[in-house]
């Protein structure tokens, strides 16, 4: 672990209680977040990306979702053991989050300004009302919203999707957090607007040296903005490395499959795309051993018997697959 590590997730297990019994949605995941860097968490729907974010933020649905073991170390304190009041202060002030759909995350009956003032009321009680207004306008300007003085009085529905996401980012960054968790922040946006928002996030990061956890299923977005990548599958981390290594030499069959499935801009049109057969298994009916084995073309007998552990294959590259280790 290096000195700049600001958040460290260790062997995190999150369980959801359902009518059919407990389901372990996250099964011992670990990763570190470094100051000023962007970590991408990728994987298909249902792999546990968003639950990871909710676990860090303490936003698991109460009382069904619970962290059952593991640690989330933020600057030396364990967020898992933190009291709700303390967590309340940390959230928003030091760790902040933006969501996929700003229309559901923003309150439709309050103006943009009101929603920004709320952040200041909670976390910066020292500011007077007029100072709050100035700070809010300043924040909207920083995220590139034109005519910020007027936009402070509009309601979310009066803004376009891209502008709404900018407002979300303004709210999230109002208290200059150390960590921003972005859960599919550009999935609902058009490509041109997506490029604008990714650019904005990179600029804000350069100004404040905050760490970003970017949750996405889009490998293109990962390649564009991430420094480190955590690939998740069915509640496990299956591969973890820096972005250049991941795209140059992906080791886990799942990562390889994900990358081959993307239609390339320089590929042969109408050629057969790579696929991963089947779909993500139901969390209640996980196969024994390696959770990916039923969709894996390299499956061996060992894969059904034992679950592979995440292990380093070189400095800063860890993979959880029996085959990769045999190769070495």
């Amino acid at each position: 672990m290096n000195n700049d590590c600001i958040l460290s997730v260790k062997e995190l297990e999150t369980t959801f209680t359902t009518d059919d019994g407990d389901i372990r949605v996250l099964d011992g995941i670990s990763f570190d977040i470094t100051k000023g860097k962007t970590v991408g968490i990728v994987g298909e729907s249902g792999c546990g990306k968003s639950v990871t974010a909710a676990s860090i933020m303490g936003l698991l649905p109460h009382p069904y979702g619970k962290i059952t073991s593991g640690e989330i170390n933020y600057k030396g304190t364990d967020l898992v053991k933190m009291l709700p009041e303390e967590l309340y202060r940390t959230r928003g002030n030091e760790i902040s989050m933006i969501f996929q759909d700003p229309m559901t995350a923003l309150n439709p009956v309050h103006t943009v300004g009101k929603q920004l003032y709320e952040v200041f009321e909670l976390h910066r009680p020292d500011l007077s009302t007029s100072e709050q207004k100035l700070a809010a306008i300043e924040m909207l300007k920083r995220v590139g919203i034109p005519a910020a003085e007027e936009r402070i009085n509009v309601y979310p529905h009066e803004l376009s999707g891209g502008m709404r996401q900018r407002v979300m980012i303004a709210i999230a960054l109002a208290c200059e957090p150390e960590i921003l968790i972005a859960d599919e922040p550009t999935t609902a946006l058009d490509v041109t607007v997506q490029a604008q928002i990714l650019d904005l996030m990179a600029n804000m990061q350069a100004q404040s040296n905050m760490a970003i956890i970017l949750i996405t299923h889009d490998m293109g977005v990962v390649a564009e903005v991430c420094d480190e990548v955590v690939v998740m599958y069915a509640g496990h981390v299956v591969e973890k490395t820096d972005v250049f290594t991941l795209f140059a030499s992906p080791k886990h069959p799942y990562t390889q499959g994900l990358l081959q499935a993307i239609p390339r801009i320089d590929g042969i049109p109408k050629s057969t795309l790579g696929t991963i057969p089947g779909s993500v298994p139901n969390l209640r009916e996980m196969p024994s051993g390696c959770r990916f084995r039923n969709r894996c073309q390299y499956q061996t007998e060992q894969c059904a018997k034992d679950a592979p552990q995440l292990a380093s294959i070189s400095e800063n590259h860890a993979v959880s697959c029996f085959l990769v280790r045999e190769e070495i």
Partner: protein
Amino acid sequence: MTKAILEVINLKQYYPLRGGLFSKTKYVYAVDDVSFSVKAGETLGLVGESGCGKSSLGRSLLKLLEPTSGQIIYNGQDITHFTPKQMVSLRKEMQIIFQDPMESLNSRHTVGSILEEPFEIHKIGTKKERQQKVRNLLIKVGLSASAAERYPHEFSGGQRQRIGIARAIALNPKLIICDEAVSALDVSVQSQIINLLIELQKTMNLALIFIAHDLSVVRHISDNIAVMYLGKVVEMSDTQSLFANPQHPYTRALIAAIPLPDPRLRGKRKLLKGDVPSPMSPPDGCHFASRCYLSTLKCTVSYPDLKMSSANHSVACHLAMEEAST
């Protein structure tokens, strides 16, 4: 040269907005003077940002909307003013696949009865023959025949999209419109569905109109691509020429905005400013002028017509035309 299966000439689809008693009715110009043609066995990709009119276009082609003006010629027959009754027999040949199969499949019916419905409507075969047809369909789209007894919610998103495709190909159509058919799927499943569509197109000689916002997907599946902006086609070309030599600044910006799955290529791109203006009151002159980094005075005054810049490649931009003529 094979004949076009679908030809669209100057199609307009306006949505009236209710004005006041004395004020003039305003319109949303969802599709504004669009022309193109599609041949059997070919795919036309329609791309553009949300609100550019691509879905409205898809719906008016099938006459799910009544076109405001223009002509839709299917197989040599002008269907623009066909009544719904006249359309029924044509529906066998023209089908649509939607983005969200959960919303387009009736959740109270089994997959078997959903897939049997097209045969029932068109009175094809006996009950037994129909059930056999359903089983064949399911196998054709990569599901097991036993899927017929289950309900849509028992399937994953990708499998549901396969059911949607099975329903669309049930009556051996000649043309299928895919409206964001793979947008809601995970990449690994998305590639399965794209492969399936390409394979079905080959075996059935299908014409596809593929509406999507993801340019790399559209590039992969299309023979020709039309780029739409605020209801108008701004550039149309065969796929290869469009990507090798994009001429409209909007097309260039769209291509540049695609995040490429290669970290070595990151950064260094021209960002498009602003959002799509409202289609209710599109700006005078070129609709794209307000966001264009090349716009000149001329662009804000007159709308550039779609003109051929080379064989198979047309573009609606004053500057691109000047470039081509010099």
